[in-house]
């Protein structure tokens, strides 16, 4: 028998109140942890999407943030295209480590298709310092070959060797009333693509896309144009006109020296490109930071809500203990008769409160782990953001310590009641 046994017996005797209080504390802790963990994980996922590029360029007229969201995170296909000569000119304007053309607008089973050059896999790193890795097959080498991102492969079930037809446009939704929005969407069933590779996950936005070469994309769109003019015609690379060779974005990286990832000439290059009104130039790193400045206000709101929930769970612990004091006056009086000092019963009640806080915190960590994984799954499904929920140990420990401190503070008032319990009055016979 120890003081701890007395606390456990006391908690068992009031099981319902103990369990509901623990759950209240657990929900508060879980909410706090999920918000903290998703906040960091979300940020990481956005950082991963932009890989090692320094700049992204789309046609003029859109905002830099929209350019980044569309070109890198597949929010929507960019509306205005860049012409091939514009790209060629751009590629000559600075000493690029790479200038990778990208073209979006088609989809397969709701997943975006990006047409690009072989440099996309050879030079662009989806995560700084990490090259693309194949789970299966190879990268595309010629037209009408497709490489499938890891998440896209999971969603569509595509494997190497499968034959597919791409869809022109991306269906917004299958709900009623979306017909107008989805107008013009049709399947390019004249041209069959072959899946040649499936990528390993990168944790970034590209995981949910399919990749093919620019030529095949230009051919199927040129074919649409030519069939409108003359039904039944076949289209090959030789039939491509300049106007068919459009792209929607360019990923750019400057040559870096001396181990630094940010080249000294980036600001000048950025400024000179920005002066060209036909282009929208964005630095993904800055745009993502800007995006998170906006989102961080929402984060603060959520953190505030979680804080209020934690506080209210502290009050719940206090009320649960305080209400139980009525039932426990007799028990405390008996303990006093048996020789327990006032300080010791004060300690017993505080320890019980702390124990409820600890149990709540531990349950909360478990709940948070499950909750964050469910949340990450939902984000992956709806936004294609691959998030690995993780919580920095410092934040985890801070939340746990805060919970225990709050529980101890919540135990003060009931403990004071226990301290002041009149033994003589509490031991009078019942009835």
């Amino acid at each position, binding site marked *: 028998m*120890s003081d701890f046994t007395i606390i456990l*017996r006391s908690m068992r005797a009031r099981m319902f109140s103990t369990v509901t209080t623990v759950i209240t504390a657990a929900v508060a802790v879980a909410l706090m942890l999920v918000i903290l963990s998703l906040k960091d994980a979300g940020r990481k996922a956005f950082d991963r999407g932009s890989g090692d590029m320094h700049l992204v360029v789309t046609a003029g007229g859109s905002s830099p943030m929209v350019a980044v969201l569309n070109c890198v995170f597949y929010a929507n296909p960019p509306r205005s295209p860049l012409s091939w000569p514009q790209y060629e000119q751009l590629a000559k304007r600075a000493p690029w480590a790479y200038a990778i053309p990208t073209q979006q607008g088609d989809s397969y089973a709701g997943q975006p298709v990006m047409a690009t050059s072989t440099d996309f896999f050879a030079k662009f790193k989806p995560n700084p310092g990490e090259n693309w890795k194949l789970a299966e097959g190879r990268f595309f080498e010629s037209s009408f070959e497709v490489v499938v991102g890891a998440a896209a492969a999971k969603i569509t079930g595509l494997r190497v060797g499968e034959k597919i037809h791409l869809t022109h446009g991306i269906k917004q939704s299958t709900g009623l009333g979306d017909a107008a929005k989805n107008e013009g969407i049709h399947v390019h069933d004249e041209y069959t693509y072959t899946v040649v590779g499936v990528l390993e996950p990168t944790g970034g936005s590209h995981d949910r896309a399919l990749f093919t070469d620019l030529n095949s994309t230009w051919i199927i769109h040129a074919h649409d144009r030519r069939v409108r003019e003359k039904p039944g015609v076949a289209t090959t690379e030789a039939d491509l006109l300049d106007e068919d060779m459009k792209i929607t974005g360019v990923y750019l990286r400057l040559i870096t020296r001396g181990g630094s990832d940010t080249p000294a000439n980036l600001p000048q290059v950025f400024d000179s490109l920005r002066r060209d009104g036909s282009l929208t130039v964005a630095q993904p790193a800055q745009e993502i930071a800007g995006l998170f400045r906006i989102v961080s206000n929402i984060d603060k709101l959520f953190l505030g809500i979680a804080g209020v929930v934690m506080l209210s769970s502290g009050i719940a612990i206090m009320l649960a203990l305080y209400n139980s004091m009525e039932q426990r006056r007799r028990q405390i009086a008996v303990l006093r008769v048996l*020789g327990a000092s006032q300080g010791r019963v004060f300690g017993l009640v505080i320890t019980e409160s702390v124990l409820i806080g600890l149990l709540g915190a531990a349950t909360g960590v478990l709940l948070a782990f499950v909750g964050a994984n469910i949340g990450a799954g939902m984000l992956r499904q709806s936004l294609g953001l691959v998030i690995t929920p993780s919580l920095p140990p410092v934040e985890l420990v801070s939340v746990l310590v805060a919970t225990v401190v709050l529980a101890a503070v919540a135990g003060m008032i009931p403990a004071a009641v226990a301290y002041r319990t009149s033994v003589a009055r509490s031991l009078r016979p*019942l009835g």
Partner: protein
Amino acid sequence: MQQTAALHISGLRFKYAGRDRANGESGGYCLDIPELTLAQGEQVLLTGGSGTGKSTLLQLIAGLMDPMGGTVTVAGTNVHSLRGASRDAFRGRSIGMIFQTFNLLLGFSAEENILAALLFSSVPTGEHRSRARTLLDKLGINKPSALIEHLSVGQQQRVAVARALACGPALVLADEPTASLDPENSDAAMELIQTACGDSGAALLCVSHDPAIRGRFKRVESLAALRGTSQGAAR
């Protein structure tokens, strides 16, 4: 050489704050005991009607309340000269209490009720379990691990007695121990309490207004007779 008394009360006076009795004789005190002494191992019945301050007296002896004047000495120690935790510790090891409603710890087993008493005593931790087992055996408590609320009233009474004696007290205070029992059971309960106290060598001060148990005591004191007299006559 004179032995130290288990209990010695001298000039004890008490009244509740804000309450003045219309009793001129006792100077408004609801309790006024010039002197009362219990020798080691002595068993005394203290009688008195309802509201005469019997339970208050026990609370004062146990150091759960402070008197207006006078001294209470238990096994040679002036109870009210001790303060705070040391008085609580003294009560834990020197005074056992038995209540009418037992006041056992609900949610605890029979054995745990006895262990709880030992927890606050000066008995070495290593001896707690063996001491509890011995008492449980001796008092015929046959389900030591059953929760207290699952035991019969008779068994609960045994646990209450065992708990009072767990720390080897010099004095056991019994507050109306038979008030909720029928005559047959009350006789058995008193037999249990008196035998157990006798075996352990503890003195017993039993307060009761139950006339049926008077015959069980060699010495019976009346609270009314004690008031203002030096000591009641032995009966």
